[in-house]
């Protein structure tokens, strides 16, 4: 048996723990499950039509078990996802701080065995508590006549989610340089990745919604749970069931659970790569340049696949799909602009993260130079962690530009967004397609490549604090300042506000695109987006140029 799992068993499942945790789990579980079961199995009170009398329908153990299922699932999620994730995060962080992790790092165990040991050894008590809920689950399945296939389907995704959350917490514990911060950072990241990020799924980027168990639960299990309860099948449940059906991806549709497993599998792979590197050598960056590129290719592929149906056919998932109407092309263009901004925003955040992870700081680069010298190499190999990341960020930027170009071409070809209407009523039925200016392709590309270049130069010139300070000041401060000015000045000085906000590339991109889309703008503000675009692109290119020159001209230390 894996020594780290054995350690977890010795440390956290001694007889006293078995009794205490077992009683806790059984008492909580039986209270919640039985309350839900008995409440659900009693017949509902209904008003008899045409009379003032209330009548109770026949009691139904099937309904009771089905109602109790969701509560049971919630409790199991609490044990494994909430308690277990917290445990893995805090133990990894504590052991890193105390030095215990170093002992493990020095043992000749395979890094994957160490990761497995931490994932299953540390939360062993939580797994035990979960195991004690299984008799209730069995009762639920038998009494509630639930389809075993659907339940197994759900639990497969459930365990995949648990492994994902635990691995995220473990990796954060390994990666965050300040161990005391690791515990908090891991909680925030787990919350962000699996709670806040799925919100972007509502903006048409469907794959982000599929990081949790919810799509499988709502798409597969909820329809079965509510099937018998015709009277209590409420409209919100109906909406949720509809909402989480097959996922549009490129020109096809994928079942929610398969899509969830694919998404989770991809993230698990990326996290395993990071954990493996960190277990081998703590000094290594979380990703090498090639693995960073692979991660970004997959990310862009998923973005492209999710956004394809929207740009090609005007079909979108999430809230966007619910509310989007192509009948009004003006609205269509605004939504297009919004979705493009979300796409660019996510891509830039991806680039920022990968620049921070894969580009070397001054000392790592210096180490590489000295090592290359010692090995008699003319230069640091391009794929090495220590090599300059200029080519790397340019490839990342080029990928974003290429995906954007594909999406914009789709939108152009679909004749759903870029259309013009003539003056007579007949033309309303047959609008004329409008050609988008090539600048709508080119200028965002310039902006993205400039941003990627200055971020890389800043990362390699300064250490973490300087880099994050620079990125924060340049991206967040103008955003907040322009918000304050907009509230204070209203539309009085919109040009100045546009120019200021454009320092943040996420706010600059909509301005760049607005200049080249047939969006009707009031006459007095017609130049405002152009000014913002000019300022934003100008500042970004200047920064990219000056910081790159400084980086490459830096005297040898």
């Amino acid at each position, binding site marked *: 048996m894996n*020594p*780290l799992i*054995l*350690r977890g068993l*010795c*440390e*956290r499942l001694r007889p006293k723990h078995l009794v205490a945790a077992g009683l806790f789990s059984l008492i909580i579980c039986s209270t919640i499950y039985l309350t839900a079961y008995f409440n659900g199995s009693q017949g509902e009170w209904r008003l008899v039509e045409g009379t003032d009398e209330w009548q109770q329908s026949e009691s139904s153990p099937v309904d009771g078990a089905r109602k109790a299922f969701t509560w049971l699932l919630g409790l199991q999620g609490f044990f494994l996802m909430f308690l277990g994730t917290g445990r893995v995060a805090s133990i990894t962080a504590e*052991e890193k701080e*105390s*030095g*215990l992790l*170093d*002992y*493990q*790092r*020095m*043992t*000749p*165990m395979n890094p994957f065995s160490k990761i497995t040991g931490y994932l299953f050894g540390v939360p062993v008590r939580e797994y035990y508590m979960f195991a004690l809920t299984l008799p209730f689950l069995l009762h639920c399945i038998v009494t509630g006549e639930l389809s075993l296939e659907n339940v197994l389907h759900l639990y497969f995704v459930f365990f995949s989610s648990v492994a994902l959350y635990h691995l995220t917490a473990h990796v954060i514990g390994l990666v965050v340089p300040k161990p005391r911060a690791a515990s908090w950072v891991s909680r925030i990241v787990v919350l962000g990745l699996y709670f806040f990020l799925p919100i972007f799924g509502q903006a048409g980027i469907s794959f982000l919604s599929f990081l949790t168990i919810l799509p499988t639960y709502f798409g597969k299990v909820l329809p079965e749970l509510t099937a018998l309860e015709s009277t209590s099948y409420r409209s919100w449940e109906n909406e949720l069931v509809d909402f989480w059906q097959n996922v549009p991806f490129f020109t096809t549709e994928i079942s929610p659970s398969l899509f969830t497993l694919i998404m989770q599998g991809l993230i698990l792979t990326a996290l395993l790569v990071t954990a493996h590197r960190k277990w*081998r*050598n*703590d*000094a290594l960056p979380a990703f090498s340049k090639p693995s960073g590129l692979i991660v970004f290719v997959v990310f862009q592929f998923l973005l492209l696949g999710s956004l394809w149906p929207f740009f090609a056919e005007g079909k979108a998932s999430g809230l966007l799909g619910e509310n989007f109407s192509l009948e009004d092309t003006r609205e269509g263009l605004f939504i297009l602009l919004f979705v493009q901004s979300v796409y660019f925003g996510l891509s830039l955040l991806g680039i920022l993260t990968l620049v921070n992870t894969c580009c070397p700081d001054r*000392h790592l680069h*210096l*180490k590489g130079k*000295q090592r290359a010298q*010692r090995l008699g190499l003319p230069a640091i190999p391009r794929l090495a962690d220590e090599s300059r990341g200029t080519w790397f960020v340019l490839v990342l930027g080029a990928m974003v530009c290429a995906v954007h170009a594909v999406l914009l071409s789709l939108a152009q070809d679909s004749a759903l967004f870029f259309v013009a209407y003539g003056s007579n009523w007949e033309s309303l039925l047959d609008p004329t397609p409008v050609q988008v200016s090539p600048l709508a392709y080119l200028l965002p590309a310039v902006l993205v490549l400039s941003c990627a270049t200055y971020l890389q130069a800043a990362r390699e010139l300064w*250490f973490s604090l300087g880099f994050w300070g620079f990125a924060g000041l340049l991206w967040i401060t103008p955003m907040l300042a322009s918000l304050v000015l907009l509230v204070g000045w209203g539309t009085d000085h919109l040009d100045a506000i546009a120019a200021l906000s454009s320092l943040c590339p996420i706010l600059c991109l909509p301005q760049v695109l607005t200049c080249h889309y047939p969006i009707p703008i009031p006459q007095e503000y017609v130049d405002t987006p152009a000014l913002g675009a000019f300022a934003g692109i100008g500042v970004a290119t200047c920064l990219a140029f000056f910081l790159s020159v400084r980086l490459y001209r830096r005297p040898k230390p």
Partner: protein
Amino acid sequence: MPSFRLPMISVQDLKIHYGDFVAVDRLSFEVRKGSVYGLIGPNGAGKTTTIKAIATLIEPTFGEITLDGTSVLHEPEQARRMLGYMPDFPPVYDDLRVEEFCDLFAHAYGLDPVRRKEKVSECLGLTGLTDKRKDLCKTLSRGMKQRALLAKTLVHDPPVMLLDEPAANLDPKARIDLRNLLRKLASDGKTILVSSHVLTELQDLCDAIGIMKQGQMVHSGTIEEIAEKTSPDKIVLLEFASPGPEPGTILSPLDFVSSVDALDESGTKYEVAHTGTKDDESRMITLLVEKRARVCRFQPKQSKVEDLFLQVESEEEGGEEK
């Protein structure tokens, strides 16, 4: 090349930066197989950083570290198999019993169950923890935790041991036990690199020492070699049965005698500094006896690590003041 020709630990031109701060700067030293090497220096001298770099836990900015010819930087996995590392602060798994703690690492190092049991018992015996084997680690005192950690370090029988302040929390008896244990391990062929603030402990334990300051190696070698480097004078303690003729006057014809200082006011105890050899020392005795001085003690003074360290410290301070 046969391994016995190579030093067991070789550190060449080691440089370690933390941001802009240079923790270790151009450090070079070698430790022979089966010897005990002591790293001494004030707080912040870079001892722990150096030990961590050898233990593969910190990647140096520059330089090379080899263990029996294996590069720590390029083959860390192989290097780790040869290493037993004990940090200065003894972290242990609080909720494990002492024997479970040792067994965990024996298991992780791939020992089979039978061998594991034997090895754990042996290491607990060596570190005097047999009685405490069933105790939870969290109930141990700091000194006991240190012993448990030493037992864990020994459990996979590593040829190289890196011990950072191993005696810091031990009581006097445990220190003596530790010293004897380390000497025994060295005589069994293990190479031990130990850092310590307890300089008197190193005196009897180490075959060679390195004195570090501000990330640099100020002196490295045997205690005698360093003593010779830091001060060419040798000291002889001289004691007479009763006050007699002034030894300074008696020894003045000997040109290798640098100075003669009285150690107290009784006129019976003196310290003679000289640059001569063993033969010269016998000439000193002969001359004193000839001049009817009633010599009852003539003892060449051993250089102490403590003295050397203070001497180096004062030299450095003098240098800085200049």
